[in-house]
């Protein structure tokens, strides 16, 4: 035979030989030594168990009949404590012990040899075990490679997610005469949601919330691209017309043109607003994003907008400006459809009512609304993670 055991790792060569018959034990050991293996001898089951553990051996040759712990009980003990390594057990039985063989198979014996043990049959069986061990080794190496690759990918994704999160505004931030409060939760590591707010001109604020269709890496790349593009400068350029009047629809129209592709259906929904603080006017364009909700101190919720085309989905989509009165002491809430569509274990969506109930109950403390919605959704989902990314943005107008 050409296969030389010498070139294999040591653990493959370790064999525990358990037999109370000294002659039989020495005989088997001498054959193993000739084959290049390292036999460790045990005259009883308990001693065999100890040798297996002490030497991390993966091959056991044992006699069926031994005082104390016999071969079958020894096998049961080994199988009841599955460590990282699988122990291959060869059992030596008498020619007339066929019933015991059945029980031995049940107990976890892998193969048998009949007494008297001869060199040829032991060699054949030990080689078969060696093939299995080498196969296991290859599988373990492959698993290690996959695990390392997975760890690397996850670490990269976490870095990307952190970079993405750093693009978002602080959870509570004051801009002009507004307090903004927010929360974002990704359904995966990376999110397809993005939002921001800034002062465009003195007294004029711009804000947006975006939800890229789909989730994961693909959606997050687009959301990050949009996050970099949509700056105060960009709003100044595209969301204010040449007479200086707010025109958020023009900005959305520009994005629709820029991101539309004939050969793709990647798109996003967007709520884009320009707030004129001195006039208490909110100008907005709804690009398929759920309607914003405006609430006063009494907690009465009013939905803004009847809908609108998503962005980058259809080249001929029209986008319009809408305007509403948004005075101090009122606040506006934007919630992505990740909240509205979140289902409880019976399949009931959280819906507008779920969101509005929280807004009404927390009208005295708008700053607490984003976290409260996240908390309520987690209860609603019964602990199972969200299917979609979730964004909550609250814009609270305060008295000058």
């Amino acid at each position, binding site marked *: 035979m050409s296969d030389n055991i010498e070139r294999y790792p040591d653990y493959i060569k370790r064999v525990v030989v358990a037999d109370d018959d000294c002659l039989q034990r020495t005989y088997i050991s001498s054959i193993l030594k000739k084959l290049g293996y390292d036999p460790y001898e045990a005259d009883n089951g308990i001693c065999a168990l100890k040798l297996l553990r002490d030497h991390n051996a993966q091959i056991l040759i044992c006699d069926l009949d031994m005082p104390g712990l016999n071969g079958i009980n020894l096998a049961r003990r080994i199988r009841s404590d599955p460590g990282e390594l699988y122990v291959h057990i060869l059992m030596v039985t008498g020619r007339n012990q066929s019933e015991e063989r059945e029980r031995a198979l049940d107990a976890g014996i892998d193969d048998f040899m009949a007494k008297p043990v001869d060199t040829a049959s032991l060699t054949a069986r030990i080689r078969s075990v060696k093939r299995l061990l080498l196969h296991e080794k290859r599988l373990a190496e492959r698993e290690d490679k996959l695990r390392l690759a997975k760890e690397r990918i996850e670490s990269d994704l976490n870095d990307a997610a952190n970079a993405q999160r750093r693009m978002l505004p602080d959870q509570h931030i004051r801009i002009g005469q507004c307090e903004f409060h927010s929360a974002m939760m990704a359904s995966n590591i990376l999110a397809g949601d993005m939002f921001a707010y800034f002062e465009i001109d003195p007294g004029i604020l711009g804000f947006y919330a975006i*939800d890229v*269709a*789909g*989730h994961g890496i693909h959606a997050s790349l687009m959301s990050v691209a949009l996050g970099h593009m949509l700056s105060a400068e960009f709003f100044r350029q595209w969301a204010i017309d040449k007479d200086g009047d707010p025109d958020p629809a023009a900005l959305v129209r520009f994005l629709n043109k820029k991101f539309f592709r*004939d050969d793709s*259906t*990647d*798109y996003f*929904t967007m709520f884009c607003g320009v707030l004129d603080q001195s006039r208490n006017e909110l100008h907005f364009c709804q690009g*398929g994003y*759920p*309607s914003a909700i405006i609430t006063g101190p009494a907690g009465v919720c009013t939905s803004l907008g*009847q*809908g*609108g*085309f*998503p962005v980058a*989905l*259809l080249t001929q*989509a029209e986008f319009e400006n809408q305007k509403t009165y948004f005075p101090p002491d009122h606040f506006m809430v934007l919630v992505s*459809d990740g909240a509205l*569509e979140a289902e409880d274990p019976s*399949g009931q*969506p959280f819906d507008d009512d779920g969101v509005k109930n929280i807004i009404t109950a927390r009208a005295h403390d708008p700053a607490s609304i984003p976290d409260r919605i996240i908390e309520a959704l987690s209860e609603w989902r019964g602990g199972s993670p969200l*299917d*979609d990314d979730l964004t909550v943005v609250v814009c609270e107008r305060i008295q000058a």
Partner: protein
Amino acid sequence: MIKIKHVADSQICVIDPITDRLTAANATSFKDEVWQLIDKGEYRLVIDLTGVAFVDSSAIGALVGILKRLGNRGEIVVCGLSGSVDKMFRITRMDRVFPTYPNSAEAAAALSERL
């Protein structure tokens, strides 16, 4: 995943996605199957969403993908919108992109009138 039914004496094909949820999990394979139908020459399509209780943004993307594939070769309408599906169509204005009908019979009748 889809089930198709041809309306007698017409070139109208009614497509049932056979799922109660058209989402990121199955929208692409749904789109691919309808694309195959279009490539085989089915140009008058009714997408019957009677049995669909929930669609997400990927489903909307898939429907528009089907519309783009069809181009001006024919017509595609949808029917059987209910609850959250109807709401999704209104919020995203898809009800202005796809003619919608209460059921497949009315959708097919409207399509055959325009033949």
